[in-house]
């Protein structure tokens, strides 16, 4: 009785001029990391809905996903929205002799997807298999979501202009929330790409910074060559709620504190570190 996953990867944006899903995390393309993490958590099959073959990033994303063990669906044309990609993935599963008992819906752009969280969500769903299971962090609902097979099939019946969040809203009384201790679950499936995402940088936020921004990460566009100092100025301009903090608190680049002159390597992990108070 397997739990499957659908990973909509047909429309993800670019970062630093490269398709996000091909940027390397832990030495492999992001899409491959997502597929491997799901496999590690016992999810099978993992269906990746790739971009169409005639866009430049299509074939490499499909190849990376396939090599990581995914079943890849290649649509003839780019799906209009993420929800359409998910529908294609569910249809692929429905074609099989034995459809899955449940489906995880996993945004492809999930660099921090955690196998332990996935296992926990599946365990929660197995306790109450009639429920939709969604993780929450700090009171906000995140991803991935576990859909029992029947509601997964109902995605196809949603009106054309709404996203999968509507399904969860319509079935609010069937949703079981699982509180997790990591904000890695907070990426928004239905949100359009961040305005800064093209040629942009993602900065993780903690404590008061997360509270002021109202989210656990923000994107900024940076002039090149990108430095920590430039990042501070861009944050203040593009996210005014963070202006005071951006000017005064420490910045971490690849998990190390960095001074303003430090250049930012492509794909660097960035974080704003307000004064710490552990201990």
């Amino acid at each position: 009785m397997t739990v499957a996953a659908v990973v909509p990867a047909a429309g993800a944006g670019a970062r630093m001029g490269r398709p996000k899903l091909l940027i390397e995390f832990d030495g492999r393309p992001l899409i491959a990391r997502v597929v491997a993490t799901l496999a590690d958590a016992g999810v099978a099959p993992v269906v990746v809905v790739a971009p169409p073959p005639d866009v430049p990033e299509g074939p490499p994303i499909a190849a990376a996903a396939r090599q990581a063990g995914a079943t890849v669906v290649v649509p003839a044309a780019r799906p209009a929205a993420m929800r359409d990609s998910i529908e294609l993935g569910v249809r692929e599963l429905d074609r099989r002799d034995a459809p899955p008992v449940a489906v995880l819906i996993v945004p492809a752009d999930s660099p921090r997807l955690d196998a332990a969280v996935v296992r926990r969500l599946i365990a929660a769903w197995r306790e109450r298999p009639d429920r939709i299971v969604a993780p929450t962090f700090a009171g906000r609902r995140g991803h991935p979501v576990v859909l029992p097979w029947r509601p997964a099939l109902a995605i196809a019946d949603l009106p054309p202009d709404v996203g999968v969040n509507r399904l969860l809203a319509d079935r609010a009384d069937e949703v079981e929330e699982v509180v997790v201790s990591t904000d890695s679950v907070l990426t928004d499936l239905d949100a359009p790409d961040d305005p800064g995402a093209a040629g942009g940088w993602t900065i993780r936020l903690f404590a008061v910074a997360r509270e002021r921004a109202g989210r656990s990460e923000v994107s900024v566009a940076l002039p090149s060559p990108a430095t920590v100092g430039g990042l501070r100025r861009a944050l203040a301009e593009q996210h005014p709620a963070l202006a005071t903090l951006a000017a005064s608190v420490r910045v971490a680049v690849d998990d190390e504190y960095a001074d303003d002159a430090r250049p930012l390597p492509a794909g660097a992990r960035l974080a704003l570190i307000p004064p710490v108070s552990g201990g």
Partner: protein
Amino acid sequence: MVEITESPLDHAALVERVRHANAGAVCAFLGTVREMTGERRTVHLEYEAYAEMAAGKLAELEAEARRRWPVIEIAIAHRVGTLELGDVSVAIAVSCPHRGDSFEACRWLIDTLKEEAPIWKRERWADGREEWIHPGLEGR
């Protein structure tokens, strides 16, 4: 050994971990959740960490302490999530051949952890207010 964990800290096990036949001294420090800060009463604390970086920082602290003192074993654990009054938020244990070094190393480890590790606490006060604690950032 360093660890960031949601689970309650087993400080006795942490001390056992560093006890060693070559050590003549084991020093342990526990940080615990205090009820009163001046006139203000705490209901509980919530700790948040940038876990990947915090674990890396704690490992760096361990390495640096080993450079500075003749340390035999070190164990550092920090808890995250919601902690009640009296709960242990951080535990550090150090074994050395002699007590002077183990006291100094333990003191340096907790002092430096409090300055460097990307971990934050949020106070839930008895008057219902909640706030992140960011030393030096008050009012900005």
